[in-house]
């Protein structure tokens, strides 16, 4: 259970404060309602590149990290398809430093040609490190492009190609900032050893004067239901054959969202999960296997990935996965197994709540979805799910015609 106070400034900035008197630290989380889904298809990767530029200085601050570190704190950020999230942890006494910095970069950036050039290079190296110079690194670009035909989820946050990042221009940066980096498109959460009565005036002091603007209307295409299976074979010098499967899942508001989360837990979380036990341990078809949902706000994916043992034939591996999925769609999960995944979920949430940064991030995300109060309904929602719900949702999701499959094959060198 996470208690918090909430208020909204006149400029539309939503503020949530979670007091945790047990710690001398404070966590600050500022979420902006803009992600890779808001990019132009010709300029992908821009939301993430922009996130880097947010650290390159604002009107009154030459460099973002310096004052935060001087205050004994640390900052970082991430971008995903849906939103961009900035966060700091610092000694609670120095909270005002973070408010000064975050409000200054919400107010006005100070980007020059040089910092743009440097961050373009940094992001290109990030792209290479994670998506090119890794075995299987290029599979995610292909899997998204195959799973989505219309929706901007068809490209990954890092960008579709290096050229999109290399071509970014200063004018794009200012335009993006003016359109998206606004108090009315942001959520500020403070959690930790602070008091609302002390913090609220400080937030008003630093953020109240920032003007709102309402030019952007998100209007994204809706992905059609997938009606035919999609297959692709990739070949490269990789250490083992691998299979990647993506099913069209639900959006974040669907009543079935939490059920899909439990489904992947039943499949692949913990040593006793079905896939780890049967496919890795008992049948030894795979050396590693995993299943998870992407958790996107719009229609997301349920992904299954596995690395095959050297003697496993691809058809056998694929059929073995399908047999587990078909079982989920036709047989009710036994009560004991239902109780197991619910207990695991309860423990997972319990451990997560011991961390002030997690609490701040999760509050911001729920508020972004529409209502922070939902955070405290998470556990009851998981606990209410019944075995028949799991079967029905499995039946809906695990359809052959709604599946995208990539075989990633080990290239045998020509002799």
């Amino acid at each position, binding site marked *: 259970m996470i208690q918090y106070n909430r208020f909204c400034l006149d400029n539309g900035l939503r503020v949530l404060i979670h007091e945790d008197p047990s710690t001398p630290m404070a966590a600050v989380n500022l979420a902006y309602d803009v992600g890779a889904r808001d990019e132009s298809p010709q300029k992908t990767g821009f939301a993430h590149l922009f996130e880097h530029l947010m650290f390159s200085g604002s009107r009154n601050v030459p460099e973002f990290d310096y004052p935060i570190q001087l205050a004994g704190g*640390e900052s970082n950020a991430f971008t995903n398809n849906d939103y961009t999230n900035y966060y700091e942890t610092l000694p609670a006494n120095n909270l005002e430093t973070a408010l000064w910095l975050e409000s200054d970069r919400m107010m006005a950036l100070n980007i020059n040609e040089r910092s743009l050039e440097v961050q373009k290079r*940094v992001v290109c190296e990030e792209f290479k490190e994670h998506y090119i110079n890794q075995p299987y690194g290029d599979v995610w670009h292909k899997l998204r492009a195959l799973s989505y035909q219309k929706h901007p989820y068809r490209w990954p946050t890092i960008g579709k190609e290096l050229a999109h990042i290399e071509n970014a221009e200063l004018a794009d940066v200012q335009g993006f900032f003016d359109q998206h980096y606004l108090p009315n498109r942001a959520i500020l959460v403070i959690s930790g050893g602070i008091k609302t009565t002390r913090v609220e005036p400080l937030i008003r*002091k630093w953020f109240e004067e920032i003007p709102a603007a309402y030019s952007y209307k998100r209007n994204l295409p809706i992905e059609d239901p997938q009606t035919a299976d999609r297959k692709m074979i990739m070949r490269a010098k990789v*250490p083992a054959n691998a299979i990647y499967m993506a099913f069209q899942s639900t959006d974040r508001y669907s009543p079935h969202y939490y059920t899909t989360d439990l489904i992947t837990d039943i499949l692949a979380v913990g*040593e006793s999960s079905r896939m780890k036990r049967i496919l890795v*341990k008992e049948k030894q078809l795979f050396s590693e296997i995993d299943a998870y949902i992407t958790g996107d706000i719009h229609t997301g994916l349920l992904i299954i990935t596995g*690395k095959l043992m050297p003697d496993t034939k691809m058809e056998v591996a694929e059929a073995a996965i399908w047999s587990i999925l078909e079982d989920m769609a036709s047989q009710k999960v036994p009560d004991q197994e239902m109780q197991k995944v619910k207990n*695991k979920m309860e423990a997972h949430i319990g451990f997560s709540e011991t961390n002030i940064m997690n609490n701040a991030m999760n509050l911001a995300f729920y508020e972004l979805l529409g209502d922070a109060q939902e955070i405290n309904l998470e556990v009851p929602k998981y606990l209410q799910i019944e075995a028949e719900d799991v079967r029905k949702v499995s039946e809906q999701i695990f359809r052959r015609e709604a599946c995208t499959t990539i075989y990633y094959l080990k290239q045998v060198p020509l002799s």
Partner: protein
Amino acid sequence: MNKPDRSVAPPLVVPEKVSLGKPDLFRLDNGIPVHVINIGEQDVISVELIFKAGKTWETKAGLAAMTNRMLREGTGSYTAKQIAERVDYFGANIKTKAASDNVSVTIYCLRKFLGEVLPILKEVVSSPAFSEQDWDRMRSTMIQRIIIHSEKVETKANDLFYEQIFGAEHAYGYTLKPSHLLNISAQDLKDFFQKRYHPGTATLFVSGKVRQADLALVNQFFGQEDWPAGSAAGERVLSPFDYQPKELRIPMKSSVQSSIRVGLPLFNKHHKDYNGLYLLNMILGGYFNSRLNSNIREDKGYTYGIHSMLVSLQTSGYFLVATEVAKEHAEDTLNEIFYEFERLKNELVSKEELDLVRNFTLGNVLNQINGAFNKTAILKGLYLYGLDVAHFDHFITQIKSTDAKELQRLARIYLNDDLMVKVIAGT
């Protein structure tokens, strides 16, 4: 409404009191030391058993990791499947970890289920079966995982680096290979387990929301005579190695980046220069505004990140600079790393920079001791080295007091390009 003056930074307070508080330590009936870290209101708890059974205690490479990995694969009373099902049923999580000096087996669970899961944890650490059949299965899976992960450019760079620092046969220097696993029998695992997993080599850490009743349960399962005492820890024998600085390249045409590793073997936190070097390392490559990151990422854009670290091991330690850089800038990156060494040797660190790094380090440590599970990690870093809270206090004092002259003295001793091993993979 008065507009704030944005040109002036808000006033700062340097964290004054960075303290671990009083240690909470007691012994079970059989003498096993237990550290209690009782913080937090969430009803979660972890119980961690640490044994002196890491790589440095091995008689054959791979024994430590594989013995640890096999603990959950069946015991006298439960099959692997039953263990997994019972642990998962109570929403618990058993994590096993084999490191260089120690291994650990930890259970994380909701407090209400502690009494249900401790018997399983007890089985796992006291009577694993190590059956031939289970070991055969595990071995082929593990071999395949090793093969998969060894293909990364950065893994190749790391493996070669540690071999050069400590020696390819040394516990700190070797990387697990399929050949090591093929050379281990189920009986080897049993023997290693017998020697190294018992109350005589164990230490416990109990963290989270901890009440007397929880500690009584811990004592009931791990403090009684039904867990045979075993002999004391014994001596470890480490293969000697003649360290030689050198430069090694692994050409890889297909790689679009180079993995750079630069470093040398050093000492651990018992050494008188360690705390000063900790601060020096921060300045060089330990945080975002460090010299290396400012130069090579934020000024030149050669990399997504570069950092340096000072790593303490129970019988040794090392210093390392690591980065993945654009292939065409690998040479220049190496030169810039050495340029930053020279600068620390030739110029005194300014007061401004020293204040920055001191404040950052103190805040960072304050964050590291925040919350039960973070604080546990810090306490392990003391007690497993035979150190205590007084050592931590001394560390904080030295972070506050080490001056620019001292940092320069340390840089002149330790940051010498010709003392380093340099590995560049993917050229």
